[in-house]
């Protein structure tokens, strides 16, 4: 169920009517959020709801355990029973074909009981660590099996084959559950934060389940920390006319970025990446610029829509993108691109590895490792690993050259603008090369595309330039305004007449220029 489809609008119309009618009953409203989120996810594949439920049950118990509490028998039994009942309900009508999922959950519940028995006699410190480890194993295990198993199995078989050893195994036919990278990271952060004494665990399974499955951000983020989102389930949400209208405006802007800009530009990018050998260098540059705008609009558009929907419901989600293409350095870029992931990686991986507390060499190692794993988070392919390494290398090189320090030194206004323009343009170029690695179908495709970019092959394939400009120019103008007003929702600073014209432009663009083919959100695959 994509946000910009009539199916979602129908779903949301029914949902929000019920939601508003339950405004006085917080628990019932939370239950509705949970049920709606499960329905929303089941629209893709109800079997994979089981994974969300397993993750939820695990982190509910692990969260309590990681805080140092002994898990009561009643709590464990209730959680196990709800897990089995929830899975039974989700798999109910397809039980004949999906019974093995249920069998796996039964086995999992058995392992859970074993873990409880093992943890009970442990001393508190050890027990806390034990439950955090359980959360890590289960969540990263789900991610490993469903996202990375085939990648590593294939890679190992390829490596062995190069060494003359034929490994006879076959890879598993596993579909990638939508959004698994997002919700597993979200649940992990909950337990880790409790383990680090940064928050208290909740005893309310319903609210925790609703937080983990919260449909506006379930399948493509932002990866919300429990510290920010979970407390919002425990107080009555404020629903005002202003929140509804600004939420709708945010949703519309996100939809414009996704359905109009990203989807239309995907035609240009797909053509270029499908046959880079047959295109001129100019055509390849146009294709790469198109992808650079496409991926930004696709992902930030989804985040805006998620924030808009959540705001209508009375929730506040974090800002996930803050003008990343106006960055002068990689550190500025990562403060503006997929902020929820980059801060997650910073807090739970980079700092965990030691951050910048050690020698320079250790800091560089930590940066590289964090970015390589961040690359792998995006997808199970060597191009993503290479992209992560490339981003890590840029971070290290800028750090070695102390570019951030140099940029912090004040200059006269003219020189300051010139310096910003040059550094911004250069870093935009580096970002585009990064997207080339990211988007390439495989290493061969990357190599051909890269060669073609700089081969100065005949000028041609410029037919799509008009479409590129038509899509990119309004976005750039809006971003300049956002930078000027230092506010993403800058429109409230405009005179009413101008503001309504902006709204009309966005609305009519959505109505008339929405791409008619099927293009999923790029980040659904992550």
């Amino acid at each position, binding site marked *: 169920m994509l946000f910009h489809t*009539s199916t979602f609008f129908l779903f949301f119309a029914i949902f929000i009517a019920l939601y508003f009618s339950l405004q006085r009953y917080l628990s019932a409203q939370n239950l509705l959020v949970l049920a709606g989120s499960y329905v929303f996810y089941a629209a893709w594949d109800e079997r994979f709801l089981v994974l969300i439920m397993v993750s939820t049950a695990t982190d509910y118990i692990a969260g309590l355990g990681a805080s140092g509490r002994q898990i009561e028998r009643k709590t464990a039994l209730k959680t196990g029973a709800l897990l089995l009942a929830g899975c039974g309900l989700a798999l109910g009508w397809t039980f004949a074909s999906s019974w093995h999922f249920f069998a796996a959950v039964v086995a999992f519940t058995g392992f859970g009981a074993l873990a409880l028995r093992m943890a009970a006699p442990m001393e508190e410190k050890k027990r806390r660590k034990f439950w955090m480890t359980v959360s890590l194993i289960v969540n990263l295990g789900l991610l490993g099996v469903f996202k990375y198993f085939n990648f590593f199995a294939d890679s190992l078989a390829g490596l062995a084959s190069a060494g003359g050893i034929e490994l006879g195994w076959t890879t598993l036919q596993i579909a990638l559950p939508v959004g698994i990278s997002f919700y597993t990271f979200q649940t992990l952060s909950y337990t880790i934060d409790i383990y680090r004494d940064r928050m208290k665990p909740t005893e309310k399974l319903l609210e925790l389940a609703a937080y983990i499955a919260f449909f506006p951000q379930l399948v493509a983020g932002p990866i919300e920390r429990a510290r920010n989102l979970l407390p919002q389930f425990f107080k009555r949400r404020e629903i005002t006319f202003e929140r509804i209208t600004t939420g709708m405006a945010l949703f519309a802007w996100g939809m414009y970025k996704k359905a109009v800009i990203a989807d239309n530009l995907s035609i240009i990018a797909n053509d270029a990446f499908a046959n880079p050998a047959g295109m001129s260098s100019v055509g390849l540059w146009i294709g790469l610029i198109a992808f650079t705008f496409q991926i930004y609009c696709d992902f930030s558009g989804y985040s805006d829509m998620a924030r808009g929907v959540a705001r209508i419901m009375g929730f506040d989600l974090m800002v996930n993108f803050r003008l990343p293409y106006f960055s002068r350095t990689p550190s500025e870029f990562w403060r503006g691109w997929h902020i929820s992931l980059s801060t997650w990686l910073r807090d739970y991986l980079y700092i965990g590895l030691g951050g910048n507390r050690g020698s320079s060499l250790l800091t560089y190692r930590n940066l590289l490792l964090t970015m390589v794993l961040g690359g792998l988070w995006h997808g199970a392919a060597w191009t993503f690993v290479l992209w992560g390494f490339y981003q890590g290398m840029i971070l290290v090189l800028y750090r070695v050259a102390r570019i951030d320090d140099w940029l912090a030194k004040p200059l006269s206004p003219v020189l300051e603008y010139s310096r910003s323009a040059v550094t911004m343009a250069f870093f935009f170029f580096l970002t585009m090369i990064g997207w080339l690695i990211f988007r390439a179908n495989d290493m061969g495709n990357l190599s051909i595309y890269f060669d073609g970019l700089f081969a100065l092959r005949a000028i041609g394939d410029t037919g799509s330039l008009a479409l590129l400009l038509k899509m990119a120019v309004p976005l750039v103008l809006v971003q300049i305004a956002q930078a000027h007003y230092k506010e993403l929702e800058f429109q409230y600073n405009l005179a009413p007449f101008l503001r309504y014209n902006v709204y009309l432009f966005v609305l009519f*663009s959505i*109505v*008339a*220029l929405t791409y008619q*083919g099927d293009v999923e959100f790029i980040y659904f695959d992550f």
Partner: protein
Amino acid sequence: MIVLIVLLSPVYIVLFGELFMRLFAGVALMPRYVTGADDGIRMNIPNAVYGQTSREVDVEVRINSVGMRADREFTFEKPDGTCRIAVLGDSFFMGYEVEIEDSFSHLLEANLAEQNVNCEVLNFSVSGFGTAEYVVAMESRVLPYNPDLVIFELHETDLSENVISDLYRVEDGALVKTGNNYLPAIAVRDKLMQYGVYRWLIEHSQLYSVVREHAGKNVKKLLLVKNTVKAFFNKDAQPEQDTPKEVDTTGPVELLVKLLERGRDLSVQNGAEFLLVDIPNGFDPPNYFSVLDRQLKDSDLHSRFNLVSPLATFTDPANADTLYYYQTGHLHLSIDGNKVVSKVAADAIINQKLLDHRTTFTSAAPTSAATLEE
């Protein structure tokens, strides 16, 4: 002041929208001049003349006095020494976005004339039709003209159109007429068409065109959901039947196959041959695809029907630069697309001897092929 703003706002929005469409969208104007007919389905408004424009085309559509897209009239009686082919399709076969001389039916006539076969091709197509409407139109509109060959268009949209129209259902493995009419928004349209302002709007307003297309698509989606749910519950209410193994029994596919069989049987019973012409999907050139290779891949239509498809020509790498569908209108066949479809249909008619059951049509000399050459 506030009252003035409230009153003027809708006017301003409409003007802004129209200007936006013209400056940024370049929306195609594809008005449909259809009305309801006595047989409970749509027909082209008799004697209508209207334009269709997009960034690629500017054409005129003329309808004759009985609702065929034709620049002449036909009598029920066939002229001596001339065979008759009836064509039933939607906007593809009706020749949307091309002049009548470049439409499938005209080019087919010219192609056959080139091969010394004197035939007149009667085009009964109506934009938006599906197979169910072809079958209804066969009985009420086509058979009185005593055709020697009936051609049905086959397109991916037929699968949903047949469910949406709900004119026929499959019950107990048999095709059953529901007795329903299918005249979507015709009453409103008929009323509005009485006003010159509305007629001007549908031919000139890009904003109106966009709004109408969106509304139409969404209404169709709702109808599809409604009828699918209805069919689902009807199916549950019926006892299980033994269905032939070779037939795909998923609802829309089974319905489509049964309707095609009905069309073929009606043709044969009335002494006519039957030909099915596949129109591939042209949304993403050159990645054309046919419903035959997707939803209908298990239905084995090739062994059950005389069936031709231009897909091989469309997807031939040698033709990669040829534009078979216009991309800025409503994705209809271009002149080149129509030429290929009519050629494969004409070749099939000759090679499969579909007109040989009546052998008196061959003329001594070929008639003018000027149309084709144009």
